[in-house]
């Protein structure tokens, strides 16, 4: 049991969540994520994919069950939440960069005020991350002066500045033009080789095949099926996933 919890960086144990009184959005979720594992979550809209990953850094709270992230159980304890948020980076569909700060300031804000890193050091680290996402020359621009793909790469760099153990991606390419999707996916593929635990909600099946260790298919708040990408795409087990795959791969 101990070895299992050590290997598993994220453990969902019968997690349930409701919006309001009636909308049961997550239903008895059981999920173990191994350290360094790369997971792609897909499923129709409204299936609870985003809610699931937003529970991991407590942007949403669950009402039932246990959710343990890197040995810390998520509860109302503010200290635990703070600790987990330092270890979990998140990238959003709408980028959510801070438009009133320059790219560099976006990256140094959290290290300086949460991590108490001196300004100069924070800037040096930020430049390293910006080089990693190949956008260092835009450091002094404001986010809205960049293209969508560039903004999303800045958002990835910003999340990486906290040197997180886990990265969550909530449909990172859904708001982008086809040409920009590739530049963002390239950055994510490069990241995947570096041992960081990644959980990615996406419908980019090419990315899933290339990078994921496991694909999870969700519908109606439940995990319907999970398997290696190869098995999932070529040999889906349930009628629901067959139906879903026929729709997204059909054209």
């Amino acid at each position, binding site marked *: 049991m101990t070895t299992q919890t050590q290997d598993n960086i994220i453990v969902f144990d019968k997690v349930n969540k409701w919006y309001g009184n009636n909308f049961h959005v997550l239903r008895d979720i059981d999920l173990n994520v191994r350290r360094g594992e790369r997971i792609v979550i897909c499923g129709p809209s409204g299936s609870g994919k985003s809610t699931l990953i937003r529970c991991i*850094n*407590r*942007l949403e709270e669950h009402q039932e069950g246990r959710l343990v992230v890197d040995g810390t159980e998520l509860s109302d304890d503010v200290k635990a939440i*703070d600790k987990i*948020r*330092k270890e*979990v*980076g*998140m990238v*959003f569909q*709408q980028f*959510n*960069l*801070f*438009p*009133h*700060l*320059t790219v560099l300031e976006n990256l140094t*804000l*959290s290290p300086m*005020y*949460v991590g108490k890193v001196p300004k100069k050091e924070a800037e040096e680290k930020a430049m390293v991350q910006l080089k990693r996402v190949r956008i260092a020359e835009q450091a002094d621009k*404001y986010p*809205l*002066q960049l293209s969508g793909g560039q903004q999303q790469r800045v958002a990835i760099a*910003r*999340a990486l500045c*906290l040197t997180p153990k886990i990265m969550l991606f909530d449909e990172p390419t859904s708001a982008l033009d086809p040409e920009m999707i590739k530049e963002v996916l390239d950055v994510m593929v490069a990241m995947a080789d570096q041992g960081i635990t990644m959980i990615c909600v996406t419908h980019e099946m090419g990315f899933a095949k290339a990078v994921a260790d496991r694909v999870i298919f969700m519908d109606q708040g439940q995990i319907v099926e999970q398997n290696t990408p190869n098995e999932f795409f070529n040999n889906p087990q349930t009628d629901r996933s067959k139906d879903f795959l026929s729709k997204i791969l059909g054209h």
Partner: protein
Amino acid sequence: MADTIIFQSKPAREAPIKTEGLVPWVKTNLFANWQSTVTTLVVGALLLYYVPQFINWAILTATTTTNADACRADGVGACWGVVKEKYRLIIFGRYPFEEQWRPLVATLLMVGLLVASCTRYFWSKWLIIGWVVVLSAFFILMYGSLFGYFDVFGLTKVTTDRWGGLPLTIMLATLSIVLCFPVAICVALGRRSNLPAIRTFCTIYVELIRGVPLISVLFMASFMFPLFMPQGVTVDVLIRVVVGVTLFAAAYMAEVIRGGLQAMPKGQTEAAASLGLSYWQTQFKIILPQALAMVVPGIMNNFIGLFKDTSLVYIVSLYELTGSLGLALNSDADWRPYKLEGYLFIVSIYFVFCFAMSRYSLWIEKQLNKSKLR
């Protein structure tokens, strides 16, 4: 392979309809269609009729004599002598005549500091020290001492009921603006708080204050408040008025700021949370800078309104600029008929300040929009 087709660019031609220059401007703005032509002609006729009359009254037939009888002669227009005769009473109110250099210096210091505070060059921690020094100096000059201390300059005491005119207007407006802003931010945040007690308190505060006129707030601050104080404890009427005006203005300002907060996308808070920022860090670093930038016109609207609302303190017998004009003219039967000239004089003073504030807000907007330019 076929021969390459050579691309030939066409020479630039002149636009068939000119859109720049005087004649096109007049055409598009004054005589675009028959409605606009009619409007132009009517407005032009009215201007031609009234503007010369006003110029005739205000300048050509005006007199600057300080002899009230000469003003009554036939054919005499505006009688600016009233301003010449009464300007010290209008500007400084009931402040002792020989000591009026003190409010003059105090007001110049205050206005100077306000201008400095609005200038990017001076934005540093020295500004806070500047405020402490200037505010102290203001009260020492005006009152003669500061809470009974700094009595060393040998200035005679002038109690606050003698203060008046422009110094009082500027002091009331400045203090209320500076004090109401942080209160308003707290109330605006409080109304969106997750804690029901704080949210309810802030909502009740805003609704109560908005439900009553400023005059009644001032009246209560002045006459009701002392009844609730223990025997022998008195708070100066000026402080009570500043607190009253501040609380009043803060309720309105809070709603303007809340408008900005409502307009912030939820993603900004979520991104800040995912980066581990605390509630206050999120508000001060992420939410407020953007929310306040969005509502600069509304904020400045309130500030300008507040500046002019200070004239209502006459209800508690404080005579700021408007009040002291009444004071200066009502008591003098000779000059009482020339209120119009007196009002035009203080209107121009109000206008200078309000116009400066509105221009400044445009500059601020421009500064804040720099990050949005592509």
